[in-house]
């Protein structure tokens, strides 16, 4: 009888424990709000960024700690994979547990702002003085600014001087689309591939296509325009005539770069983040040419430092202080050199150029660059981008003509953005 009672009790306790543990789990996530330990000064401030490659001992983490100390608080940093961060930020916003400072990829800013997760710089008191207007524009929508850029990257045209020499191409002769195509033909005649890029069916594909799209005078508000068709015809023609490898249709920017590294391709459209590797391999860089000359506007990449909405609005002052510290000239030059970014302020760009004059093409490219969500597109951009990359794929595979593909895409974009 005793054993019987005992057994019942044990089982009941075990059952209750299990339920209790589950309850504890679920309540744990909702009380993990960083806003719990309030106070204008002191306490812990949370920081999320998309740089899991930098651990606590890295310079990056140390700068964050120093800026926290300067503001009189302790920083608690968490790094997520960049594709994870948007979802995590949305969920945290839903549960009221957003971090104090959130570093996100710039095209995501308008989405998070639309969700009501981010404070405007007006509300948080974060200063936007000194930031280049074209870079800052990626974090603006509806007349409000939702954060400050910590650096910018963009696309430019890398070339392999060894291949150019063998093919008899003068890099200086490449000034517009016609002269670039002529150079690619020379490269092909010499047994090389002309150019590699990424036309993969994701956001990356659109990102890479935009310099040609904008450089030909097309606008994202009308992706079926004759200017857009001309840009897509240029790409499709390169693939069709063997000036670009067929694998561009499936290449990410990384795999496209790997092909370029093999040394059999004359040109490669790729980003600022490859500049250290380019230097190591002896590759040179020039801005992407527009249709009739000049520098084509390439899309800006890079992250924005934002201040998510908190229950305790008194925290904004400290967060803004930390953000301003992170973007002061000394810190931002250090950060952008580590990240292979170009600084978003003129003063910091000057300092970067003084230390390394070879950055000149990049500073120019960033100066001409344009945010994807600019032109007040905001959250409409993703709905335009998807039909656009699908059209690029259709035309490059020969499934349909550039004209048909883009007209269909414009129809789809129009329906989606209504």
């Amino acid at each position, binding site marked *: 009888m005793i054993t019987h009672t005992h057994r019942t009790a044990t089982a009941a306790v075990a059952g209750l424990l299990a339920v209790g543990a589950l309850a504890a789990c679920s309540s744990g996530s909702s009380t993990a709000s960083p806003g719990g330990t309030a106070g204008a000064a002191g306490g812990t401030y949370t920081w999320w960024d998309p740089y899991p490659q930098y651990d606590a001992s890295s310079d990056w983490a140390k700068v964050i700690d120093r800026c926290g100390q300067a503001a009189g608080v302790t920083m608690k940093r968490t790094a997520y994979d960049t594709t994870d961060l948007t*979802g995590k930020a949305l969920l945290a916003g839903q549960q009221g547990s957003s971090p104090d400072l959130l570093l996100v990829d710039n095209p995501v800013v308008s989405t998070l702002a639309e969700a009501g997760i981010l404070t405007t710089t007006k509300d948080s008191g974060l200063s936007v003085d000194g930031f280049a207007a074209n870079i800052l524009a990626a974090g603006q929508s509806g007349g409000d600014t939702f954060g400050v850029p910590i650096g910018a990257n963009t696309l430019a045209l890398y070339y392999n001087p060894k291949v150019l020499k063998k093919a008899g191409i003068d890099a200086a002769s490449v000034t517009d689309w016609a002269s670039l195509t002529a150079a690619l033909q020379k490269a092909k005649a010499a047994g090389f591939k002309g150019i590699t890029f990424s036309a993969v069916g994701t956001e990356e594909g659109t990102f890479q296509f935009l310099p040609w799209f904008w450089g030909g005078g097309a606008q994202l508000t009308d992706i079926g325009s004759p200017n857009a068709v001309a840009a897509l015809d240029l790409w499709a023609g390169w693939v069709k005539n063997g000036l670009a490898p067929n694998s561009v249709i499936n290449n990410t920017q990384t795999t496209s770069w790997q092909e370029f590294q093999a040394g059999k391709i004359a040109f490669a459209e790729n980003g600022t983040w490859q500049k250290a590797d380019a230097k190591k391999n002896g590759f040179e860089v020039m801005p992407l040419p527009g249709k009739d000359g000049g520098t084509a506007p390439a899309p800006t990449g890079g992250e924005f430092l934002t201040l998510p909405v908190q229950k305790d609005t008194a925290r904004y002052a400290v967060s803004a202080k930390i953000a301003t510290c992170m973007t002061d000239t000394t810190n931002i030059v250090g950060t952008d050199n580590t990240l292979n970014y170009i600084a978003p302020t003129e003063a910091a760009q000057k300092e970067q150029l003084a230390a390394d004059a070879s950055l000149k093409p990049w500073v120019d490219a960033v100066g001409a660059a344009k945010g994807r969500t600019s032109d007040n597109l905001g959250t409409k951009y993703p709905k335009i981008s998807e039909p656009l990359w699908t059209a690029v794929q259709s035309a490059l595979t020969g499934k349909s003509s550039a004209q048909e593909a883009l007209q269909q895409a414009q129809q789809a974009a129009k329906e989606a953005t209504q």
Partner: protein
Amino acid sequence: MSTTRTHPVARRADEVTTRPRMSPHVTRRSSRTRDRVTAAAFLTPLLAYLILFYAFPLFRNLDLSVRGYTVRNFVQGGAPFIGFDNYVKVFTSQTFVPALTHTAVFTFVSIAFQFTIGLALAVFFHSSFRLSATLRALFLVPWLLPLIVSASTWSWMLNSDSGVVNSLLHAVGVSPVNWLTDPNMALVSVLVANIWIGIPFNLVILYSGLQNIPNELYEAAALDGAGAWQTFWRVTFPLLRPVSAIVTLLGLVYTLKVFDIIWIMTRGGPAGSSTTLATWTYQLGFGSLLPNFGPAAAVGNILIALALLAGLAYIRLQRRQEA
């Protein structure tokens, strides 16, 4: 069968009748309540687990699919109920018919090849020979590799310009094929990779099924003068039917939801030519900068319904076999 079934019942009846003799009337009642509490305590963790990890997510997915979610009301709540609008949007989408066709082709061709090759290999390895165990182990490799590794390897091998497959074709004088970038070839390429990955599973299960067929039947067949072909069709194949049914069902459910291989190799492209329902639901929910949770959940539910239909068909088949 019937004798073993009555035995535990009899023992429990025995227990019930002996217990009151030991304790007075009142204790019997409280002991019954205690039994109930015990039962509930044992049941609660399981129920809690089932509700938390099965019922709730399923319900949530259904709920997602009948609401008009935007990023704003996803965070701040209050997504309006819109009935079947998301489903209508999915069914009338230009992607729907191709995605459904690709899913059907991908699933049935995969299973047909996986099963046939798996069965042929199982029969081959069943007649044990030297090194057969080692070879059989080697055939398991595709199954043991992480999908990201095998899919990336396939995608390197099938690269149009620098892939090993095209350079082999070139060596024998065949012009190169754009395996992953030609809209007519992309689905074939992911199919080949998926068949390769699925063979070991079929091989292992069918092989264990073969071992359950009594040897006497083969001896009898041999005495009756049956050849290898006849033995296979008259003995092996019919006796493998229950195992074959479960392998096919599991294969069906597994193949319907294959996502990683396709996503890594082609991302459902080029221009949607290898998009299946599984890659489409991911594309809608997480593939672009702006998540489309409602339609994504709707596509996900269609997939679940398809798998459920397959399960019901299996149960029906099994009942008919038992009857």
